[in-house]
């Protein structure tokens, strides 16, 4: 029989990569523009930026195009690109009260200072396929845009800032101090530079969650919401908008705004016993790039769950959660099972055959004994 040519692997791989690119380009449709993906698939962009841990909408659009819509691959590409970029420094902390809000709601209160601003959301849409979208009707698009902006009140008051719901609770002594003295960090962790060690610091944990894969995090958070664990949450506030990115000036050291970043922030409240015996609300915090509400809410849940004093389910086990929510690591390892494992398998086969022989010999001698 023919032996698999040792040197043939090279060519096969080249062709496989070519074929992958070909699948995407073989059709009659015009190539997707980066602008089209960025504008019309903006939620996919937001998801990929968050999981890739790199805020770069154009690159995210390119990654989505190149990966033919596989968000795991696209996030991976962004992460790999990120690793090649030089680290210039760390931005200065910013309060999300400074957010230029585009959406802001609270489930904890019927009404809140500044109001419930629904913003752009699919939450209230009927999930009925719109067959009109099958046609690319430019006239219809224009008419729709005109309709949206017609009859708008010209004198609507838009507050420039919205107070945080949790600051109301804090003022009334209802919110527990999240950061106990023992856990104050003198230096923030940077998980891209140091490995996670357990128990992980809050900054390390939040970083890991912020770049986690949406589906994985949702599954874990869902398990908690359904009852695996003892957290009974309420969404204190969800806000989406643009935060200023401030760096210390390289010469003067003064704060210097270099741009803005769209983020989703979720704050989840759950009841807990304070150290002084007085019950309070504890806070779970979620923050991620772009508009990704499922992820931010899940993140807030997971933040709270993993700080449980006595974990009673996987979602409350910090090690379990933080090790398994990174999409790039999970997909890499899942995919690696497709690599050749024949040496390992053969080794296993050898063991199995040996064990089978022993088992059979044992059975035979037991039967022989029984016969006597």
């Amino acid at each position: 029989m023919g032996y698999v040519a040792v040197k043939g692997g090279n060519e096969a791989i080249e062709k496989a990569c070519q074929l992958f690119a070909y699948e995407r380009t073989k059709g009659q449709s015009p190539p997707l523009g980066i602008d089209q993906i960025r504008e019309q698939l903006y939620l996919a962009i937001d998801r990929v930026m968050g999981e890739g841990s790199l805020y770069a909408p154009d690159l995210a659009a390119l990654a989505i195009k190149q990966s033919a819509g596989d968000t795991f691959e696209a996030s991976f590409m962004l992460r790999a690109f990120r690793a090649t970029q030089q680290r210039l420094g760390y931005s200065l902390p910013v309060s999300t009260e400074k957010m230029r809000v585009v959406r802001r709601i609270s489930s904890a209160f019927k009404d809140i200072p500044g109001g419930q601003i629904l913003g752009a959301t699919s939450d209230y849409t009927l999930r009925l396929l719109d067959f009109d979208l099958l046609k690319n009707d430019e006239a219809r698009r224009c008419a729709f845009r005109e309709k949206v902006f017609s009859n708008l009140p010209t004198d609507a008051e838009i507050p420039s800032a919205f107070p945080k719901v949790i600051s109301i609770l804090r003022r009334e002594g209802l919110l527990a101090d999240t950061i106990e003295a023992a856990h104050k960090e003198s230096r923030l962790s940077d998980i891209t530079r140091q490995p996670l060690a357990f128990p992980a610091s809050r900054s390390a944990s939040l970083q890991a969650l912020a770049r986690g894969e949406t589906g994985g995090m949702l599954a874990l958070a869902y398990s908690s919401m359904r009852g695996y664990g003892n957290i009974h949450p309420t969404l204190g506030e969800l806000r989406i908008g643009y935060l200023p990115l401030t760096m210390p000036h390289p010469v003067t050291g003064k704060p210097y705004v270099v741009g803005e970043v769209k983020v989703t922030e979720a704050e989840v409240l759950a009841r807990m016993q304070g150290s002084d015996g007085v019950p309070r609300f504890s806070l779970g915090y979620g923050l991620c790039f772009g508009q990704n509400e499922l992820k931010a809410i899940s993140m807030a849940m997971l933040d709270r769950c993993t700080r449980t004093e006595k974990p009673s389910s996987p979602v409350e086990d910090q090690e379990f959660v933080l090790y398994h929510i990174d999409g790039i690591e999970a997909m890499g390892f899942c995919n690696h099972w497709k690599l050749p494992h024949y040496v390992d398998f053969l080794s296993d086969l050898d063991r199995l055959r040996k064990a089978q022989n022993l088992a059979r010999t044992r059975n035979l001698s037991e039967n022989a004994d029984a016969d006597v």
Partner: protein
Amino acid sequence: MLMYEWLQKDDELRADKAQTAGYPFGFMDDGAKKEIRRSILKAVAIPGYQAPYGSREMPIARGWGTGGIQITLSIVKPDDILKVIDQGCDGSVNAVNIKKFVAMVAGVTITTDTTAATIIQTRHRIPEERMTDQQILVLQVPYPEALREVEPSEIETRRMHAEADYSRMWLYLYEDIVNYGEITISYRYPVTVNGRYITDPSPIPRWDVPKLHMSETLFLFGAGREKRIYAIPPHTTVAPLEFEDHKFRTENFSGKACTRCGATDTYLDEVIDNAGVGRSYFCSDSGYCDKRRKTWNR
């Protein structure tokens, strides 16, 4: 640049070409490499101990050798001669990807000859030809934690290593013997390094485990996804876990020989023919097999 474009470049890539492509020598930034070097030195100073490190993303997926690649890229010199193998084979998917990448960003010469290489990066095998103190073997590791089989929690396995509390591992092996008549672990056979740490030698077959003991060469183990580096220096004791009455045994190839080169003393791949009936055997170490074929007259 796309992976398939990298793959299309010819093998004679030099460091200057890598710079034109926009990547620094060794691909990663200096901070990443320094951290890896610090971890490597500590790993060598504490044989068998898993030193944690930050572990950067590579353009190759996690689970596909990023740990090994990061080590290689942190230690490589432009005049190195690199061999990369997967399951013993130079032409395998994983090996080809990796060597093209390293050649691209470090300008090294590629070889399939074990004796000519200065650095060998490998997945799941140690080459048949004995390596020297002028060479380094970099092993790709999917599961760095030997104790993971008996304990899923990292906090707990750290404690077990800290206190050399390995009773649960020994119990696991003992139960194997009770249930199956012998220790059934095939690859990833646990070993004690320098009489102190129980270490996972990576998914090499049992056949290769004895090569780690008192060798001339340095073994560096990289787990990218799990973010650990560990090492077995030369002239270090490496003892597979065994019992007095159930000694460690390698795989048995008696009566079998390589169809290509006739070797009876190498680890053999079993290949099933197209009819699904016949069995042939071939050296897993393809480079060694090639060499033997040249000198062996059929």
